[in-house]
């Protein structure tokens, strides 16, 4: 058994057949294969079925508010840049309620992995439309079908300047696991949107639907080419899986003037009371 495997006797709160189960396997495998020390891995999640993931992996976590997992994750990685930080949640959590943190953290380029379980529906609250629900999907709140244009998270991330943009599918476990590993190894913000079926509430985007609408990028895809990536991202008929785009970039610890190359975790940084007395005597800066 891997370090991350949860050995407590727990009844996972997902429905039988849910795509979250294979995603959990993938995740644990990815972490294990990278031989990460579980005490140095932290999850930050919001609320939703996807956001329950950290409950079932043995590592530290901050299971906070719906939509806010990325904001919390960004601060955690700022305060201890040596941790492996994973922000994880559902499409509603991360693209709906949390949309503003998404766009502004791409700008910030924190050193973390952002995993979004995209089942194109709100699972935990019983089947309403999510920002990725396809037009026409009938839900309890959209009795005549969804009418809003779904969000295109890949195109959005590219437009915002993300340096690692990838898509996976819980039905393709081996490949998706490799995406997670690549994302963890990437310097800076890495987003992986992972398709997975919600067997209870989404009868349109089923396992079979994902199988027939997705394809995996091969070695030939020039993943440092933004135009090519954008073209793939904007194609909503044939959904590309794999790393659409990856380039080197300066991540937050290299950008923010605070660090100056010193990545010491904050809990190890101590303030000397002697320095404080200087405060009073320091001449005031004038406005």
């Amino acid at each position: 058994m891997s370090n991350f495997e949860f050995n407590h006797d727990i009844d996972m709160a997902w429905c039988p057949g849910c795509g979250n189960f294979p995603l959990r396997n993938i995740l644990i495998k990815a972490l294990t294969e990278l031989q990460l020390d579980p005490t140095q891995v932290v999850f930050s999640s919001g609320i939703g079925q996807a956001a329950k993931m950290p409950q079932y992996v043995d590592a530290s976590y901050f299971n906070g508010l719906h939509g806010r997992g990325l904001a919390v994750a960004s601060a955690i990685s700022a305060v201890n840049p040596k941790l492996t930080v994973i922000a994880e949640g559902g499409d509603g959590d991360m693209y709906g309620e949390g949309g503003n943190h998404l766009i502004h953290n791409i700008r910030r380029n924190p050193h973390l992995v952002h995993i979004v379980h995209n089942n194109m529906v709100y699972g935990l609250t019983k089947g309403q439309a999510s920002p990725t629900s396809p037009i026409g999907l009938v839900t309890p709140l959209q009795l005549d079908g969804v009418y809003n244009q779904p969000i295109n998270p890949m195109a959005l991330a590219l437009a915002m300047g993300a340096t690692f943009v990838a898509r996976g599918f819980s039905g393709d476990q081996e490949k998706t696991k490799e995406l997670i590993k690549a994302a963890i190894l990437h310097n800076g913000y890495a987003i992986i949107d992972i398709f997975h079926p919600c067997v209870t509430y989404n009868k349109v985007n089923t396992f079979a639907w994902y199988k027939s609408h997705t394809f995996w990028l091969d070695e030939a895809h020039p993943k440092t080419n933004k135009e090519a990536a954008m073209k793939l991202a904007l194609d909503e008929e044939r959904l590309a899986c794999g790393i659409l785009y990856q380039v080197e970039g300066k991540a937050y610890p290299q950008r923010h003037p605070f660090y100056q190359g010193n990545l010491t975790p904050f809990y190890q940084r101590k303030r000397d009371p002697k320095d404080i007395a200087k405060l009073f005597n320091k001449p005031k800066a004038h406005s």
Partner: protein
Amino acid sequence: MRESISIVLSGEAGQGLQTVEEFLVETLTQETYVFSSKEVMSRVRGGNNSVEIRVSNQPIQALRYTIDVLFLFNDHALERLLPRLTPQTIIYGEAPFLKSVPSQYKTKEVAFLDLGKQAGNRLYENTAMFGYIAGMIGASVENAKAIITKRFNKRGEDIVTGNLKAFDLGYDLGRQDPDRPKELKPTHFSPKKALTGNDVLSMGAVAGGVNYVAAYPMSPGTTLMTLLEEKSRDFEILVEQAEDEIAALNMVLGAWYAGARALTTTSGGGFALMTEAVSLSGITETPAVIHVAQRPGPATGLPTRTEQADLNLVLYAGHGEFPRMIFAPGRLEDGVEVMSRAFYMADKYQIPVFVLSDQYWLESMSQVDALDFNPKYLESFVVETKRDYQRYAFDKSGISPRGVPGFGLGYVKVDSDEHDEAGGITESFTMRVSMQDKRLHKFDLMKKDIMEPLISGSTKHENLVLSWGSTYGVIEEALDTHPEWDLTHLHFIQVYPLPESLKDIISKAKTIQVIENNATGQFANLIQMTYGVKVNQRILKYNGEPYHIDELITKMEATHE
């Protein structure tokens, strides 16, 4: 006997009122008691702003409504101040600025611009005005010149010389002014330092160990963040401008969770957006320090003015029930104490702690002899985790020891759902009750750490005046000048939780009067709720201004008829 002169400067945003204010206050604070405060419009340039500098022979921390000496910076600088004039007020300014002054008032033309030019540059006019005022009130030339020199040193010798000359020209004229006020020199005085509320809060935050700040700009909460950015290199503080206030507090919680001492600062409207995260701090027992700088609402309200109307918001922010602590500084030095204490208490009790200030307190300049920095407040309560660490263990201390991820062999599992000792989601009814009891039990533990109110005035404790936060100075001055009212003043720096020790005084009092800078009496309500008593009288003000001493005395006198 307490005497004071109130000098007011009035002009447009950008005309340099603040420079003259700083020159004056920094000079005077070395030789007498002084207090200053500004009122500004919500715009970047133009409009009309004013600064009041009050000089006294006794300690002072309050404004006066009526003006003794008024300096106009332009031709539309008077209108808003008309109600504050008296037959004794003398109005100074360039000839064209005085044209609009109604004939019943005394005016005095001074050509500051010419003085500036004479000294070499029209830009020195404000320094000439500074000189004039210094001359009028007999400030020390030596001190004044040292300050001018320090201020302009970097800009080269010529500019220093020119400004000094402008000062001299002004000073000589002011000194000869036959209408200049009587000089108010205290008999004993040791030089002090003049600082704003923002200054001391930023010092307090450093003294409390702040090393992470996430906030979104909002007046009057932004300045604290700016001052911490200025200190960030000296003290290793990571300052992060968040995308919105929701992010700000969530980031602050993430930062504490990961081992930082983190702060956010905002005003009422921005804080409203943080209330969900306050509740998150509550259930996850993640510390947070939140500075809420009050300004008048509702909504955008009067963005650059003052009020004390967000006490309720801060008291009850967040869904569900959990402990919190709220401080509201009154004296200047309280700012250091409460801000550094806030970090300590947040860490110790694993709760959100609020510093509730207001525009008036933050932006006024008052004096201190020295500041105490209590090194205890830097003490960290973080523990190194063992392999079997449980974040929410039922500890005999009543508080579950807090670890941070990456420090030790354990996992730190924190949950916004109701959880078990390990931090896993639970739906057990009994666990729910145990966890809720554990959190609420901190109210009991906190009792030994409550700051008692400042008590002054009559020792009879029959007729009480209760107040909180920024009204301290003005109420003290009113009581000081009216001992015949025989009032006992209880001023609260910690406004929540309130001390049980006062139950006696409060329930035995004949009358209870509460003075607040809001429209409904929020603190009075808190007193009624906490002690189960009736407040007899609420003195309230809510036009966007702080209390003025003369106005407060009138209001209080009316209650003593």
